[in-house]
């Protein structure tokens, strides 16, 4: 293995693996931040640091790195890169060198994010970076802006590349209605990225201009408006939730269809109703993040309704997923366990979002641990479980080896239990009034027991994830040979050897009339 070959690679699979390594590094760092926070909160008052700033920096790093450094790159960087050309029967992506540029930018972004821990005044503006605080803090807001901008560039470049690849590089006979659901989902996610990332870029650029160049976009004493930033930020960052949601649901569809050996239930409803519906609605729901900011009433009410309507496309996708189990022949290897776990976690997360869609209930619930619990269930944990499911699922393809099934399942169950201890408790004390982003909760001392329980839960969660990571490393080095298609999947990526060579197939594949990636039942 030659390091130089890896750094200068243009092979989509290696680019994908680079994305995986970088995003897992971000995941580990952000996870350690979470554990530090949980330890800090395990007693009233100072526990491991007497400086609230340290806690705020951990909180910033946890949020920013989990979302921008781990979930989005793992889903739209690793999975998209590794799987899409293989799923559509292409030799590589449309622009391999541009692809290499995107992974380099991603690493620059990760390094910038890690600099947080080495500079004298690290950013403490949360991943949202709201002004006026972000323009007056002693913390380094510029580092935040540049991290976001660089990762945004990586994402846009990836988006252009993959939309072109999917449109022009499908194998002969592989028509649009035979695409894997994962490919459709990623296509949807990249459409959203291309539309909305520039808005986020604008928002964080204006913040830095206000702070360092003396402009007044968000300064009301000079004609600016603080709410403008929140509107711009959430105009991107709510669709960003679907940038995470769509690919992780795509991964789930692949896994559930493979392990149930079944066709996807109501493919067209999933693609056009589900993915299409989400793309249509995603840009008109951001105000539900601003229910308590004094926005005018008509827009709060209007977007309450659009927000609730999101339940339709999401519901169609969930029905598609559960329907795929119907009359299946289900086996329960580790990837399937994680995927089925997500079904339940996502159900809790999605339904607990409904109260938050209602303007009136949000007047009490917003900015409490209820919100934190909700979005961890629906996006953070559901997304992370899906990523772990996907890595387990394509592990034999990537390495040609098998992970250890026993440790895989054990890791899943430990994580699943830990997750529910932490985030269920979080929602419970949130409804009772515990506000989020608190270094010290002395005036809410009644919640100390709950906080201690969550700290224990977080430790359990950490052990579960660590088991999975170790399982992969050991499996990649000395796992048993897996064969080319251990899951007996119909999808194209399993028709080549494991790991696939440069160029993926000796001769380009073509598909027959009756083939689909889910055509198990050939009656």
């Amino acid at each position, binding site marked *: 293995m030659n390091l130089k070959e890896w750094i200068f690679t243009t092979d989509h699979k290696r680019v994908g693996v680079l994305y995986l390594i970088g995003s897992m590094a971000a995941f580990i760092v952000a996870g350690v931040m979470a554990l530090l926070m949980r330890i800090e909160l395990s007693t009233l008052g100072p526990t491991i640091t007497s400086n609230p700033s340290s806690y*705020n920096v951990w909180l910033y790093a946890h949020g920013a790195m989990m979302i921008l450094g781990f979930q989005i790159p793992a889903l739209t960087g690793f999975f998209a890169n590794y799987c899409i050309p293989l799923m559509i029967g292409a030799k590589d992506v449309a622009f391999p060198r541009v692809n290499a540029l995107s992974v380099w930018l991603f690493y620059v972004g990760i390094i910038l994010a890690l600099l947080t821990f080495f500079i004298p005044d690290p950013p403490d503006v*949360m991943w949202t970076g709201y002004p006026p605080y972000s323009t007056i803090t002693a913390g380094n807001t510029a580092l935040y802006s540049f991290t976001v901008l660089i990762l945004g560039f990586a994402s846009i470049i990836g988006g252009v590349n993959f939309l072109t690849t999917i449109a022009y590089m499908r194998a002969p006979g592989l028509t649009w209605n035979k695409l894997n659901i994962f490919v459709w989902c990623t296509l949807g996610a990249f459409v959203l990225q291309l539309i909305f990332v520039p808005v986020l870029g604008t928002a964080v650029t204006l913040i830095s201009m206000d702070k360092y160049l003396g402009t007044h976009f968000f300064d009301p004493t000079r004609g600016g408006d603080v709410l403008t930033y929140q509107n711009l930020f959430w105009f991107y960052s709510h669709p960003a939730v679907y940038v995470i949601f769509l690919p992780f649901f795509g991964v789930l569809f692949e896994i559930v269809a493979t392990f149930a050996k079944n*066709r996807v239930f109501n493919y067209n409803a999933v693609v056009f109703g589900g993915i299409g519906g989400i793309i249509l609605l995603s840009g008109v729901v951001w105000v539900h993040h601003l229910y308590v900011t004094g926005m005018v009433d008509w827009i709060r009410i209007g977007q309450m309704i659009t927000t*609730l309507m999101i339940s339709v496309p999401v519901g169609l996708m969930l*029905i598609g997923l559960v329907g795929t189990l119907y009359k299946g022949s289900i086996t329960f290897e580790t990837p399937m366990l994680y995927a089925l776990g997500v079904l339940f976690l996502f159900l809790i997360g999605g339904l607990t979002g409904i109260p938050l*869609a209602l*303007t009136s209930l949000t007047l009490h619930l917003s900015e409490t641990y209820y919100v934190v619990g909700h979005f961890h269930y629906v996006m953070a944990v559901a997304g992370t479980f899906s990523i772990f499911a996907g890595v387990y699922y394509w592990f034999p393809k990537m390495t040609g080896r098998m992970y250890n099934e026993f440790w895989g399942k054990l890791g899943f169950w430990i994580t699943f239990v830990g997750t529910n201890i932490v985030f269920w408790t979080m929602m419970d004390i949130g409804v009772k009034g515990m506000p989020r982003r608190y270094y010290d909760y002395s005036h809410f001392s009644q919640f100390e027991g709950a906080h201690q329980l969550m700290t224990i839960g977080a430790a359990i969660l950490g052990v579960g994830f660590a088991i999975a990571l170790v399982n992969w490393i050991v499996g990649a080095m000395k796992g048993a040979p897996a064969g080319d298609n251990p899951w007996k999947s119909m999808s194209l990526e399993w028709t080549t050897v494991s790991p696939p060579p440069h160029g993926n197939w000796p001769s380009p594949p073509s598909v027959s009339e009756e083939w689909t990636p889910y055509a198990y039942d050939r009656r």
Partner: protein
Amino acid sequence: MNSILKHWAATALIAVSSVAMAAGGDGQSSGQAPGSGNVSKLQYLQKGEARITDPAPGWDYLWKEVLIDITVIGILFALMTAYFIWRYRRVPGGPEVGSAPKLSPAAAIGWAVIPAFVFLADDFFLAANGWVLWNKYRDVPADRLEVHLESGMYSWDYTYPNGMQTQNELIVPAGKAILLRMTSRDTLHSHFIPDFRVKEDSMPGRTTYLWFLPKEAGKEHVVTCAEYCGVMHSYMAGRVIVKTPEEFKQWYEAGGAAAKKSS
């Protein structure tokens, strides 16, 4: 079972009529606290004879209602999923591949349109209920005490109509609606009173408002900052102290005279 059906029918009816009313244009733009609101349409959210449109019990009621709604949906979905997982597990000697039927075009459309309408029905039902309660939160009774709040890192500074000022202690009479007009002198803050189920951000350059109805004299309620505002965010706390109207009057007049003297 019958009573549940009746209850749903009643709430649905009220929901529909309230949508019609709300669409009729009594939504107020924020920053403007309207006078006493429409009382009758909101009374279904309350038990007993309460006549003031206090949102806090309405919140508890709607929360319970929504919780039942999502719990029922969640359990149905989870049970169905669990049943499928168990029922269609691979058994030794059983089929190696699944045999889900291919949907006919009509079935495919049905499986998209019917669930969509079921979800939409529940969405609109919830939206209507949420909307009614929202109006309640925005309609401030005319008989009220109006207090100006300026928040800053890291304190709540209240100014009463007579010029009296307090810090981190909002002293109020029981039984009277309290309206806070809020602004901030530095960063974002959010005045959160969990006991009254209400919060609203305060920020420089804009005036926002919230109101609540203290009921029990002698009680204290925690006020806490809910919007990340800086390093000491978690220490930005205060209290609402509820006095009897007589006690309050005494305190208010004494303080008012003092405030005049000092100015």
